[in-house]
């Protein structure tokens, strides 16, 4: 069976430091939570999947095809939301999303889709406003919009709820949960409650090693403490 994304024995080292040590797992439609303390290799793993870093060894397959020279085709089906909002403060909200649409080769410069997404993340009334004038939470939602734009098959979200108020966090969780029904979402976070109810599988990262567990009825916080308890 061909998975949406399959990682096989990924290694990444920075000099003598090994950030990833034989990471292997596969993802299909659904939300995958990526949990781990600081320095466990989460960001490195996401950067390697996004192509921002080259793995030292290992292989990545997208729909069974190796990800190598076919990066451009892959990026047409890929959305990435970095930890800090990657936006141009001098652009207006609408201008920025149109720019991302052009970068993503979307027809009609995003057109209706931008309107729909802005409505979904409650930014419609701010579409003419300069990004520099937006609050941190608004920028975060805009960054999510730019990642989701073009309806990508694989979405990587790095701490997407940082800076959001409780209501917005719930709304975002619901939005990502809906996306997960037909897309593959990898959600990296420190806040276990964000992913507890929507994650299909939990990927625990510890010292560069990934351990995948099915989500279960057992409280995630307890499982988290059980897994990382020795680090406390």
């Amino acid at each position, binding site marked *: 069976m061909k998975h949406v994304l399959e990682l096989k024995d990924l290694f990444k080292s920075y000099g003598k430091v090994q950030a990833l040590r034989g990471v292997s797992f596969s993802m299909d439609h659904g939300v995958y939570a990526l949990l781990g303390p600081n320095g466990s290799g989460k960001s490195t793993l996401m950067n390697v999947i996004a192509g921002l870093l080259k793995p030292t060894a290992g292989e990545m397959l997208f729909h069974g095809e190796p990800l190598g020279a076919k990066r451009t085709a892959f990026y047409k089906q890929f959305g990435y939301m970095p930890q800090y909002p990657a936006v141009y403060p001098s652009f207006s909200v609408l201008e920025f999303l149109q720019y*991302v649409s052009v*970068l993503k080769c979307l027809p009609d410069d995003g057109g209706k889709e931008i309107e729909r997404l802005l409505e979904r993340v409650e930014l419609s009334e701010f579409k003419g406003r300069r990004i520099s004038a937006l609050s941190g939470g608004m920028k975060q939602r805009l960054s999510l919009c730019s990642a989701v734009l073009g309806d990508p098959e694989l979405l990587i979200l790095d701490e997407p709820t940082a800076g959001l108020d409780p209501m917005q966090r719930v709304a975002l969780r619901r939005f990502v949960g809906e996306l997960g029904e037909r897309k593959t979402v990898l959600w990296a976070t420190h806040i276990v409650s964000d992913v507890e109810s929507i994650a299909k599988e939990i990927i625990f990262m510890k010292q560069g090693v990934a351990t995948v567990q099915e989500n279960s009825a057992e409280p995630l916080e307890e499982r988290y403490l059980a897994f990382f308890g020795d680090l406390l």
Partner: protein
Amino acid sequence: MKLFAFEWKKLLRIGGLPKLCILLFALCFLFALAGEVHEPTDGEKQAYRDAYGGEIAYVIRLAENNKLDYAYTAGEDSYIVRYQEDLIRLYSDLKEQGVAPRAVNGWDAFFSLSADDLLLLLCAVLTGIALTMTERDHRTDTLLAVTPKGATVGSKKLLVFAAASLGYALLFPLCGMAGIALRYGLSSPFVPLCSVQEFLFCPYDLSIFSYLCLSVGVKAVTAFAVAVFCGWVASLSKSYLLSFFASACALAGGWAWGSSESALALVNPFALSETDVFLERYRSVSLLGFSVPLEAVAGVLLLLICIGLSLLFTLTGRSVTSRRFTALEKGVFCVFARGRKALRGRFPKKAPKRHSLFVTELNKQLVKSHLLVLCIAMLFFKGAYAYSTAPFRDPSEHLYLTVCENLAGELTEEKRLYIGEKLARSEQVIRDFEDLRAQFQSGKVSQEVYLAKRGEYETALEEQYVYSKLSLQCQRIDQAASRGQTAYLHYDTGWLALFEAEGDLLLYAFLLLFFCGSYAKEYADGFHRTAAVTPRGMKGIHNAKRLVALAAGSLFTALFFTSDLLLLHKAFPFCHPGFSAAGILDTALPLWGVLALLLLGRLLLGMGYALLVNRLSRLLGKPYLVLPLGLLAGLLFL
């Protein structure tokens, strides 16, 4: 085109950059309106027009003479003979076509403007760095890296550089023209270029308008090359400091290259942005013994440089990820980091010392910000630059030194007579040889006789140089005597060069780079707010930064001045420092006293400039806003 439009928007919305460019345009206009320009009087213009035909005829005659001389010494097929043939052909064509200057107004003043070229290059540097750094500033590298068209953004940036360069190349001359038009009025540009006195020897039949179009094109391409180079360095280093430093080095290197003796020295950003130098007279380069016009060689080289840099810029943007950028930066400084680590390992850890704010600031500005590396690099650069452009004592100057040392001391009647006789004799030999050359050309004298006299003629040229300089010294000594001051004969070339030298551009560039980011870190990290609510407030930090500016300003001024002094002394020794300076300046102080005063003045200027840049940084915060204003202030200090 859509991505190009977005890139253009990014450029126009970079904080402060458009306003800064408007300010620079306004400055260019003001320079033209009130700055120092040369507009000849009506009488001078008439005299110039009357003399034009004679001047061209003289050039043709001179080229014919030279051709004859070189044909015997270098051979008929040599480059130098071909060059003379080119001269004869080009200027004879001009003469036959009846090209002659017309009455013009304002154009002489316009072409004597030079500030606009510097401002143009400055805009190109700022554009290249600021637009490339936008992605780093807003952490959008990742956005471009993970989108299908993100890799093409680099090529769109190149288009923006090209459009902006063309805009700058058009607007700066227009601002200059507007200022001159208001000041003197501007006549029609559809007259021969030779109507402008600077282009007396322009070898081509061009109108002022055609030249302006050509000049805008060349300036635009040069500005584009500079912008792409700066953008390339910025995309590699992802650091404002390294980008501005590399750009300053490249431009200073170009300038140094421009001051060298080579014909290709004119292929540097400063000369290319001026463009006047290419058409003020005919210049050519020897390619396999053939004489090729310099403007053609420069054009081809410039295009090749543009293509090469554009390729580098595009490839760098496509292939390098953000992680590698920081690795490069780390690579530059890792040697120091290792050294520091090794040193720390050798000595046992001491209890942390409490430093004064001055020491902390010095440490912060010099060591922690890695400016120490730049300091060392800049000092090396200064040394290399000073060494490569060090004055050279040619045989005539060597003879002058020997004669001066023999005659040094009080100017007696005997010495005065000796100098006068020697000068008259050498001038007579030169005149005789000119007559002999005329006879040789008309076939009255044989080649052997002509060549035999040539050695004597060359010796006379050297002697004329020496004794005319001594004669000038005698005049200055007489003037000093009339003021009641005693002056002496001595070897004065070094002293004259020292006292007449302008400020050190490199020093001011260095101080500007050093202090332009004094407050950038505080503002960027919001530390100024934290410091403001401490008992000592920002006042203590301001004082410490000012003290650092004074200390570093004086130290670097002293270092730069000393290096110049040593190199000058090596070429033109500073003899008899105890003699009165009355023969050079209007003062009875000894020469060493004037030297001490000069050093003091330079130190004060250096410290003042460092303080000014420090203040600008406090007011404006961002280094790219401080740099242009600091540069303009630096020109005033020079």
